[in-house]
């Protein structure tokens, strides 16, 4: 998805932003990833995100608007997620590659989110999974995350849903651009 021109006057002053939602359990690195895209710097003084956070990012020739869902309250405010997930271009699930004991909960969480946003989000909105903190020894690989999350079931539910797992490191930025490039390329099909 590139630059889209809205109304003539509106387009003259500001361009439409593609909205991307980051979600995942607490402590997986969502804020660090968003901060990396926003400033190019490493976020070192992070605190848990309560509620949500929004950042506008100019990425290559696209204007993106990242909406980060606080991971500490993943089930609490589901009724409100309809508002936040409207008209989004893609979903980004951030997984802690070192958190093997949380991968089962992450799978359940992902499925609940996908079910909840039915009707609010376009069926072909792509799902990008960042396997964050992959540089830590003993971290899960992309294929391992894919298997544990049972991502192939996403397409069984909806044949248009594309997904991709990208190992990443929010500190060094490793893998972040590759993942976002994949997401934008697949979002352009909308």
């Amino acid at each position: 998805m590139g630059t889209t021109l809205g109304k003539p006057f509106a387009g003259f002053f500001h361009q439409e932003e593609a909205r991307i939602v980051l979600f995942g359990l607490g402590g997986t690195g969502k804020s660090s990833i968003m901060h990396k895209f926003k400033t190019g710097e490493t976020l070192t003084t992070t605190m848990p995100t309560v509620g949500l956070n929004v950042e506008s990012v100019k990425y290559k020739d696209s204007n993106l608007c990242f909406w980060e869902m606080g991971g500490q309250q993943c089930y609490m405010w589901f009724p409100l997620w309809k508002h936040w997930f409207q008209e989004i271009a893609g979903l980004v699930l951030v997984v802690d590659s070192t958190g093997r004991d949380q991968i089962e909960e992450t799978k359940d969480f992902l499925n609940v989110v996908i079910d909840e946003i039915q009707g609010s989000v376009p069926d072909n909105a792509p799902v990008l999974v960042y396997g964050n903190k992959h540089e830590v020894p003993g971290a899960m690989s992309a294929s391992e995350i894919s298997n544990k999350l049972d991502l192939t079931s996403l397409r069984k539910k909806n044949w248009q849903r594309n997904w991709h797992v990208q190992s990443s490191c929010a500190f060094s930025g490793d893998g972040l651009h590759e993942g976002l490039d994949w997401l934008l390329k697949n979002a352009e099909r909308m």
Partner: protein
Amino acid sequence: MAGFINLEDSPMFQKQVFSLEGTSDELKDRCQKLYKGVKKFMGALGEASTGVSAFADSLEEFGAGHDDPVSVSIGGPVISKFINTLRELSSYKEFLRSQVEHVLLERLTNFMTVDLQEAKESRRRFDKAVHSYDQAREKFVSLKKNTRGDIVAELEEDLENSKSAFEKSRFNLVNSLMTIEAKKKYEFLESISAIMDSHFKYFKLGYDLLSQLEPYIHQVLTYAQQSKEQSKIEQDRFAQRIQEFRTQSELDSQQASAKADPSDVGGNHVYRAIPRKNVEANSVSTADKEVTKQGYLLKRSASLRADWKRRFFVLDNHGSLYYYRNTGNKSAKSQHYYSGLGEHSSGVFGRFRTRHNRSASQGSLDCNMIDLRTSLIKLDAEDTDLRLCFRIISPQKTYTLQAENGADRMDWVNKITAAITIRLNSHFLQQSPARYLDKKNTSSGPATENLTLNQKEDYNQRLNVGDDVLTILREIPGNNTCAECNAPDPDWASLNLGVLMCIECSGVHRNLGVHISKVRSLTLDVKVWEPTILDLFRNLGNGYCNSVWEELLHHLDDDSEKGSTDTLASVSKPSSEDWFTLKEKYINGKYLEKALVVKDEREANSTASSRIWEAVQSRNIRDIYRLIVKADANIINTKFDDITDLDVYHHHHVDAPDEVKKRHDPNACQRIKNSNEARNCLQGCSLLHVACQSGDPILLELLLQFGADINMRDYHGRTPLHHCIASGNNAFAKVLLRRGARPSIEDGGGLSVLERAMEMGAITDEELFLLLAECQ
């Protein structure tokens, strides 16, 4: 005078007539002067009456209208009574004026125009008759002797007629003069006395009217005096309030400027959450709406010009934020109603309270609501570099606002952040999230909108547990403050470390990595706080945990009394007001480097392994925790073989390979056969195996939290899951399966957990069966 003595025509008669005429002329002059004075007096009376009437009319316009709030506020009903009195007095004055006109002026005019004029006319006719009579007499006496008789008779007749006319006019003159002479004795006295009587009546009526009003007047004067004193008191009080308000504004400005610094250190990120007690204080009074904060903010227009509009914003304690655009008319703005009268307890003014209670009509105000449930607040505006900006962002609309000073900006941001939290929490309570929790368990199935009775009960229990979690955890010794900086009321925790902390320190803990600290929220992560976890925290707590992690700090505290202060300064514990980087440094040193842990250097790791094995067998939670923290190496996966000489445990012979394989089969173990107890053979068992045999869920939880290998196999190839199944502990088996235990692992006999379970008979626990089959 006694009157005419003699009516004959004689010089004395003439003299008398002249004298009377002189008096009449004098009287005429005086009457004219009196006439002028009376006219002037009448004019003055008329003007006075008109003036009083005009005064009454102006008073009526000023404040005597009925059902008019402004009128009541300025004492309209009282003034209305006075207006009636003034109008009455005006009518009295008018009557007096008319009396002067009719009784005095008219009679005076009549006297001058009738009586005095008549005298003048009589004099003129008399003079004419005298002239005719003289002429006739001269003709008659001038006749000669030889005049004919008829002429003489004719002239004689003329003379007689002239004489008769003369006499008649003489009598008329005398009569008119006598009339004047008689009237002047009573005419003026009567008129003037009548006027004086009118004056008397006028003043008496006025006096009577005002006498009746006198008590009322005194009452009103008294009330006015009291109101004046009360008003002075209120003005003094208001001046004091203004002074306090200005003082408080300065204090708030200083506090806000000091408070703003830490949040800016981190750069462009969400402002930190409001301490929970503030949020709770706001939540307590949810029954009635109160204004949390209100004031003017500059709101950037959505139009193309993007100019700033000044709007009045109101934030109430229900978490509602709205702003006004005042478009009311001028009269609406000036309307208000009086509250002072309502305070007076006098019965005379009781009827004013009814009017006071009526509401004044207000001008129309445009009111716009901002939905905070889906909003967040940020301390910057991306495309402007103004210092006082902040944004409220929601998926539908973004509001760019600007405060009028730095302190006000921070105050708005803090209170709106608290309001967002309130809205989200209240929204959560109003909704029924049980279906979402239920959906998690049946994630592959379709979403179900119907809740069974059991699910609703489960939801209620879950809510109750959520409410109790905070209370339970904070009651543990040391848990009322943050384990790192002593900030009050911590609401974050580390699952494996067993400590509570504030939101700032929880950020540092998350950076340590999940292998060191697993951070969860007490209020937001509702699923985590199962009874086993709560029991584990009860056994630990900030007090005990810090006695292990900060043991060196405690020793230094003791040494400081002996004068040793050099090392104390380098490892002092941060306070809640310290910089984030200072807390980060302290926490990293505390947990990553274990800088404050007192090492047992005298003992080797083998001794630590033996001690933790004993602690696990005796189920001493605190000892296990302390030993894990103090150990240099990882002792969480200690095995029975590490602490036992195995040569005497199983007979080792040089056997054929087939014999070696058979020895690992648990069914071939003679020790297990003899005692008929699977747990008796401990060769190759880990701490987790022992915990599963013990049946202590807290012990199991502690080992799992510290990263015990959940799939480690013993001498006979059995995992802890095997041991749970063999001993019939289904609850533990389910815990292990949910935490990632793999039931597909085969033991020394070549059987998986499911097969071993079936070997023991039908699996009656359906949940356990599903978990075993699902992970296969």
